């Protein structure tokens, strides 16, 4: 078995290392097994390392929004090594297990929380043909895995033997289970449009990004992914003024660090999933298909960079909202979901399904642009109707609180006048 070192280096640089290795060792099952383990290891390690970057960026950007400087001492300039210092600090801290904790629930919870976040990255297409595993039910897999993360929160809240932790877990579960509904319904819309549940299929179908087709669905998905990751303004799972730190009140040191890392990884994945489902993922005007002479897949690097930039923009929106909006109350969160998001998404899903079916029956050879325009028009109509309905409703609410008084005909005054 001869491996050309130059080809090996080249494949490592253009992200096709494991494809190359698989072809080279195609006839050796043991080697293939080891390669598969390496794939899993690298897929799991990269998001964990990214947490350092994401955490630092978030602290820096949030600080700027709040007119502060943010971390600026550790690691030379700009506080670049702040997150490294934080992790070292967490690792050296004592892990305090509260008296009366239910160890069977307390100990696995942070591991499960991190695991469910990392597992999601298996189905994220980084570039054409660069993906952990191209499942044909990838979106279903994502939903299944993220539904398990609720269990981790419940275990943490129960196992801590602390009322604040338990209350936080109840809130978290109520919020996560509720917002799963609009999230599933809104991601069904791009699945309908792409006729595919695989993440690669979703990306390949987007000659025009789906956000142009269905901006309202994209907005609903964005809001519910905010709620699913427990980000501001939906961060009442850890509202420190009400329930200390929520379900992870009793976790110290690196145990808390695992929850934190899991949360950041889930946020990164949600940003990447939004880019994949609505912004065209790794696609960048066909540049992601470039192959240089000598078989160097430059396009893979461009594709990965495109996905990274798109996700970064979404992540910036996450940070912006966190820096701007105050926190909702519990009843507001649940009302907003069940009385607004779910009905809106249901209407949207029905409209898109029927409209797309009609387009395909009546105009089988319509171009993507025409299809996009029709869907866009229906979406804007739905948005306009929604805003009008909301406006009237809020007007009624305000009138109920402070009824308009007709000064000319106040009954008491008229009575007094008659006497």
């Amino acid at each position, binding site marked *: 078995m001869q491996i050309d070192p130059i080809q090996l280096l080249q494949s490592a640089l253009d992200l096709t290392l494991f494809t190359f290795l698989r072809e080279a060792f195609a006839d050796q099952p043991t080697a293939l097994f080891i390669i598969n383990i390496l794939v899993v290891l690298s897929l799991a390690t990269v998001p964990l390392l990214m947490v350092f970057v994401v955490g630092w960026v978030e602290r820096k950007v949030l600080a700027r929004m709040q007119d502060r400087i943010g971390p600026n001492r550790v690691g030379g300039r700009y506080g670049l090594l702040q997150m490294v210092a934080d992790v070292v600090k967490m690792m050296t801290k004592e892990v305090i297990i509260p008296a009366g904790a239910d160890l069977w629930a307390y100990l696995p919870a942070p591991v499960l929380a991190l695991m469910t976040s990392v597992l999601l990255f298996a189905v994220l297409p980084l570039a054409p043909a660069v993906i952990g595993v191209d499942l*044909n039910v990838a979106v*279903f897999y994502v939903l299944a895995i993220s539904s398990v993360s*609720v269990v981790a929160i419940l275990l943490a809240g129960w196992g801590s033997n602390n009322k604040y932790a338990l209350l936080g877990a109840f809130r978290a579960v109520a919020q996560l289970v509720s917002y799963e509904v609009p999230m599933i319904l809104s991601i069904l819309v791009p699945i309908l449009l792409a006729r595919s549940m695989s993440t690669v299929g979703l990306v390949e179908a987007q000659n025009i990004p789906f956000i142009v087709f269905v901006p309202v669905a994209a907005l609903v998905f964005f809001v519910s992914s905010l709620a699913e990751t427990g980000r501001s303004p939906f961060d009442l799972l850890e509202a420190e003024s009400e329930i200390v730190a929520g379900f992870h009140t009793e976790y110290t040191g690196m145990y808390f660090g695992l929850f934190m890392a899991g949360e950041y990884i889930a946020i990164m994945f949600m940003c990447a999933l939004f880019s994949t489902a609505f912004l065209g993922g790794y696609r960048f005007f066909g540049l992601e298909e470039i192959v240089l002479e000598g078989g160097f897949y430059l396009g893979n690097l461009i594709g990965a960079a495109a996905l990274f930039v798109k996700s970064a923009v979404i992540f910036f929106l996450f940070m912006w909202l966190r820096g701007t909006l105050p926190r909702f109350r519990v009843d507001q969160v649940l009302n907003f979901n069940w009385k607004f998001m779910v009905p809106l998404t249901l209407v949207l899903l029905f409209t898109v399904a029927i409209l797309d079916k009609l387009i395909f029956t009546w105009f089988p050879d319509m171009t993507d642009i025409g299809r996009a325009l029709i869907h866009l028009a229906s979406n804007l109509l739905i948005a306009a109707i929604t805003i009008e309905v909301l406006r009237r409703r809020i007007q009624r609410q305000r009138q109920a609180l402070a009824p308009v008084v007709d000064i000319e005909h106040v009954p008491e005054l008229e009575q007094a006048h008659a006497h």
Partner: protein
Amino acid sequence: MTGEQILFLVISGLTIVTGILVVTLRNLFHAALAMMVSFLGVAGLYILLDAGFLAAAQLLVYIGAISILIIFAVMLTRRMMQAQDTPFNGQAGMGLFTAVITFALISFIITRLWRQPIFATPLDVPSEVMDQIVVQLGADLVSANAYVIPFIVASLLLLAALIGAIYVAWPQEEEAS
């Protein structure tokens, strides 16, 4: 023994052991946790059988929904910290009867089919066909020639359950007003 067989033994062992723990543990919350691990083991078995869709459905339905429902019910209905009473009730005889009957039935079927080719040779279904099976399932669920009627009936049943739940949970209005 291949790696797959070792994995099968580990996963099925885990499933069985946690399954036994579910009915023997005295702490009800721990029993619920053990049940969750047992469900996870079943999902692992599905993955070993190349049934990825089924495994994801198992995760979503049994762990993401049913286990959480059960844990919530356990938390809200029992004094958890004091609940150390025995999980056994007086129906051991009935349980034994059911278990023996089920065991006899399954062993009968397996011994009858043991020499049949379906057990002797592994089914060699290419993954493209397996993928098509999931697609076919989806198409059949909404096809008038297949399962659309049961599908709609099931959704009607769910709707009725939803309405019933809302009716039960609705705050009682005062008769006077």
